[in-house]
């Protein structure tokens, strides 16, 4: 269950439309390393996490990603809402415009539609958490690429910098969740079995303070 708040996690207030940049940033909505993929990845994977810490991290980061996809789609909306036909045709936004006018639709910068194959839910927590660490880094790289394009436009760069910084925090938390699972496995071979499938849940749902 979720509860909606009528505010953005970080404010977005873009006054000057720019179709070309909108098409770039759209990739962080529905592209290969975008926020939709991130949110669906974590919210799907959380069911097979073997301990409460990992499930909590996936649940709460997956929830925050929903706020990020709202920020990214707000950026795209504000960059496209007052475009003239001339700008649309000149900027290369024409093909998108033909299919979607200026509606927000999940696709990559290159026009590839969002696809669930952008992420995995493997049912193995070690595998899934390594994917998540990589996913956070890939998203950070994409934000770095966007920032090189928009660095001189503070009204766009500012919220993008916020989103980039969150990728780094999420990477850290996923690393801690992964460690919490590995500490409860055989250190000589973390892949000896899938702790969510082959074995009864040996990982404890108690927190470290409850255990001691």
């Amino acid at each position, binding site marked *: 269950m979720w*509860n*909606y*708040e*009528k*505010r*953005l*996690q*970080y*404010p*977005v*207030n873009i*006054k000057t439309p720019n179709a070309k940049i909108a098409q770039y940033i759209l990739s962080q909505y529905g592209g290969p390393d975008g926020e939709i993929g991130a949110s669906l990845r974590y919210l799907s994977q959380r069911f097979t996490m073997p301990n409460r*810490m990992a499930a*909590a*991290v996936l649940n*709460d*980061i997956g929830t*925050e990603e929903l706020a990020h996809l*709202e920020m990214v*789609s*707000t950026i795209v*909306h*504000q960059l496209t*809402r007052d475009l003239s036909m001339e700008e649309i045709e000149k900027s290369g936004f024409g093909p998108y415009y033909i299919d979607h006018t200026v509606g927000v639709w999940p696709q990559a910068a290159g026009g590839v539609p969002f696809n669930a194959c952008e992420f995995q839910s493997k049912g193995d927590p070690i595998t899934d958490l390594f994917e998540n660490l990589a996913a956070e880094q890939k998203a950070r790289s994409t934000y770095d690429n966007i920032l090189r394009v928009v660095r001189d436009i503070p009204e766009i760069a*500012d919220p993008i910098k916020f989103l980039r910084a969150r990728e780094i*925090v*999420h990477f850290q*938390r996923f690393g*801690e*969740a992964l460690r*919490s699972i590995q500490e409860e496995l055989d250190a000589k071979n973390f892949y000896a079995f899938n702790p969510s499938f082959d074995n009864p849940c040996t990982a404890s749902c108690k*927190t*470290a*303070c409850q255990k001691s």
Partner: protein
Amino acid sequence: MMCPNQCTPKEKLLQRINEVSFAVNDILLYLDTHPCCQEALAFYQECAAERRKLMKEYAQCYGPLTVDDALETDGSTWKWMEQPFPWEQEGGCR
């Protein structure tokens, strides 16, 4: 941050809510992996209390940001629907 000197009291209050809510979001993830950290627990408590207070204050002055506060102003109309979405800049759904 986003609004320098010329922002209205309403914008200032929303900015304060954004800041304190961000502190809650961030410490929440930290507590997920450090559930025994007393310092973090105290920080959460402080920020969460401030957030509750400011959310209520905003709802009373300007309308609800969540459905839980929908009737804080007055119950004669459905203020939740009337509140703008956060991507709007000019009102009228734009």
